[in-house]
């Protein structure tokens, strides 16, 4: 088995999943979501790719072209990732000014105390 883009993307995906589960910092959760999304983009780009393909521009032989479909899908995914990161960071800043902590557990405890009162 060779080390290609798909293998690297699977490793990146599990790194992001570990950060999502093992860490309790909110900023690190957002960063882990970004890493997982990058892994998915790398997987889609490098799948169905063999050595020596040419970029799909101009009238070259269709047998030598790389697959243009996942590349067009991933342009959409990149822009959606930017908007996801922006919205989650805005939500985090408002949450931090309200509760004063970056820890999921502490924020959750403070919210429970607030609703009990």
């Amino acid at each position, binding site marked *: *088995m060779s080390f290609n883009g798909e*293998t690297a993307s*699977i*490793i990146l995906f*599990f790194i992001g*999943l*570990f950060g999502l*589960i*093992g*860490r309790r910092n909110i900023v690190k959760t957002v960063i882990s979501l970004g890493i997982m999304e990058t892994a998915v983009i790398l997987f889609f780009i490098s*799948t*169905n790719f063999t050595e020596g393909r040419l970029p*799909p*521009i*101009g*009238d070259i032989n*269709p047998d030598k*072209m790389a*697959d*243009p*479909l996942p*590349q*067009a*899908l991933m*342009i*959409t995914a990149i*822009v*959606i990732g930017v*908007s*996801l990161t*922006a*919205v989650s960071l*805005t*939500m985090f*800043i*408002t949450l931090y*000014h*309200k509760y004063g902590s970056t820890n999921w557990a502490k924020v959750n405890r403070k919210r429970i105390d607030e609703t009990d009162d």
Partner: protein
Amino acid sequence: MRRIIIFIIMSFIFTVFMFIYKDSIVVFPNQVSDYIKSNFIIDTGARNAVTSIYLNYRVYDTFFETLTLLVSIIGVIHFSKHEGEL
């Protein structure tokens, strides 16, 4: 301690996943890709296949992607509570 346990579980899942993945043979359905690759210059007039896909063949992608960007900006403006004028 919690982090080490999670790391061990993740490594185990990763090893099992790679053990299954290395023998798998994926057959791609290439009909759509072949059609686009051989016909996009005549159909759409673009010489870049990616542009021809996201502006002509799959134009709904562009619609809802721009809608997602617009909704996310509304979310950025709505979620930020602060003193003073909006």
